[in-house]
């Protein structure tokens, strides 16, 4: 089974995001980058499936040259080879899906496993758009994946509970939290990853026009919520809620 998985290089989600004074973007000086956390679940699941069913894991990233670091991390975890589609442009989800559709056309994987969203842009669109372009079935927000007889049986986290869906492969799966526990790259894994193949392409090589459908006009900080007051005890709290806030 050939499994394609994707990683995005994002700002460290535990760092405070600061915005440029001219609102043109976020401040990138001194910012650390890492693999999008949802993609870690996707990569882990891809490797787990390969371990169970055999085959190959190809990891793809679209982004700056520096994203080779995240691709090496994925290969250190156990992916077999990597493809970087190099661009410094900030692509919208539709452009990412168009680029990936071309990569899928070349690689012809049996299944694609991606993170359900990126923790920077928080859009949660690319797997579904890609599913539509490929005309493949999708199982988003997966917390459980089993492969049987050319089908994926996927448990999904949905509003109101959980749902189970079967999709015939080739298909596309997006990873939610609780799908697995992503492994740490071992030292031998890191050494091996340095020698694994990493191909670099550009959107032009793939014949994809990355012009956006959605344009970001500016970036602003949300309205800050000031800290309130500390109350002495439960009685004080109840009185404040009753008399000041009037919410009980």
């Amino acid at each position: 089974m050939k499994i394609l998985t994707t990683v995005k290089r994002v700002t460290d989600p535990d760092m405070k995001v600061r915005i440029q004074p001219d609102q043109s973007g976020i401040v990138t000086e001194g910012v650390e980058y890492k693999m999008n956390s949802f993609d870690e679940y996707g990569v882990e699941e891809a490797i787990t499936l390969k371990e169970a069913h055999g085959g190959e894991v190809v990891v793809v990233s679209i982004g700056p040259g520096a994203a080779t670091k995240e691709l090496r991390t994925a290969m250190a975890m156990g992916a077999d080879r990597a493809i970087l589609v190099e661009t410094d442009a900030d692509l919208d989800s539709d452009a990412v899906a168009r680029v990936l559709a071309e990569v899928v056309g070349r690689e012809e994987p049996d299944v694609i496993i991606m993170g359900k969203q990126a923790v920077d842009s928080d859009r949660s669109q690319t797997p579904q758009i890609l599913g539509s372009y490929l005309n493949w079935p999708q199982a988003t927000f997966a917390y459980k994946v089993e492969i049987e007889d050319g089908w994926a049986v996927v448990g999904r986290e949905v509003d109101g509970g959980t749902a189970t869906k079967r999709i015939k492969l080739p298909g596309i799966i997006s990873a939610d939290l609780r799908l697995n526990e992503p492994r740490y790259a071992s030292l031998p894994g890191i050494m091996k990853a340095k020698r694994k193949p990493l191909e670099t392409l550009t959107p032009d090589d793939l014949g994809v026009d990355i012009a956006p459908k959605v344009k970001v006009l500016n970036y602003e900080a949300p309205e800050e919520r000031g800290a309130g007051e500390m109350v002495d005890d439960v009685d004080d709290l109840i009185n404040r809620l009753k008399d000041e806030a009037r919410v009980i």
Partner: protein
Amino acid sequence: MANVLVVAEHLDGALRKVTLSTLTFAQQTAALTGGEVHVLVLGDNVDAAASEVAKYGVAAVHYANEPVFANYMAETYAPAIAKAAQELSATVVCAPSSTTGKDVLPRVAAKLEAGMVSDAISVSDDDGLKFRRPLWAGNVITTVDVLTPVKVVSVRTSDFDAPPEGDAAPVKEFASGVSAPDNLEFVSFEQVKSERPELTDADVVVAGGRGLRSGENFQMIMDLADTLGGAVGATRAAVDSGYVPNDWQIGQTGKVVAPNLYFAVAISGAIQHLAGMKGSKTIVAINKDPEAPIFQVADYGLVADAFEAVPELTEKLKTIT
């Protein structure tokens, strides 16, 4: 005409309240485009939901009762929504930013060659429609321009109230033309049954964190919620630890809530959690660590052991509510 199409959401034929908040967004948008608001209801038993949603000041409701829609699936809903959008000359197609909306709308956008906005919190007209949306776990707000003629939008419903009821709009049957695909199959939906209000609809939310140390200890969270007629929520850490169902998660990757009153109990206040509750009107934090970041956003902070303070709070509230 530049109409707005709302995809209604229902659970077993009962209209979900997130649909009503989405209608308000749609009405604001239609006021800017000069078009009408149309609603699409897909399912196999949606007559009641269609008549219900028709009462909220819309131009018309279009419904399809077809076996292929018995269980929601993106692959069957997306082509039906795209067809309806074209037939109704919709230039904006929107739905709640629920797990269903997030699942289906990108496929609709792809079919309509449209750009999509996720989690819109406002719409305005400044030389064309502009939408604002949060990203980076709510730490950044952007204004975006969708460059395609048709725009697809998922709506963060906690930012919009339900519209007032008006005259009943006509309810019309819609033929989807969708046939059952052979490459997918709905297996089951395991619903978390609860007598409490839905998290996203509740006036009061009581949420617990990993500091509660076990699922059993969430009982006191539920007792407090029940005393106030509220819903129960949790942090990602508490859900990951298996204390409570995933459906309770509030935050960047869970639900976004904005109740009148929010209790954060034994919650440290990671930015990913704050993203899901910062819009609440009054926030109460109870935590034994005075340095916990949650106190930075709380209106009222109580430094106390939750195991003592919460039962005391519940008992005392029972005597006054």
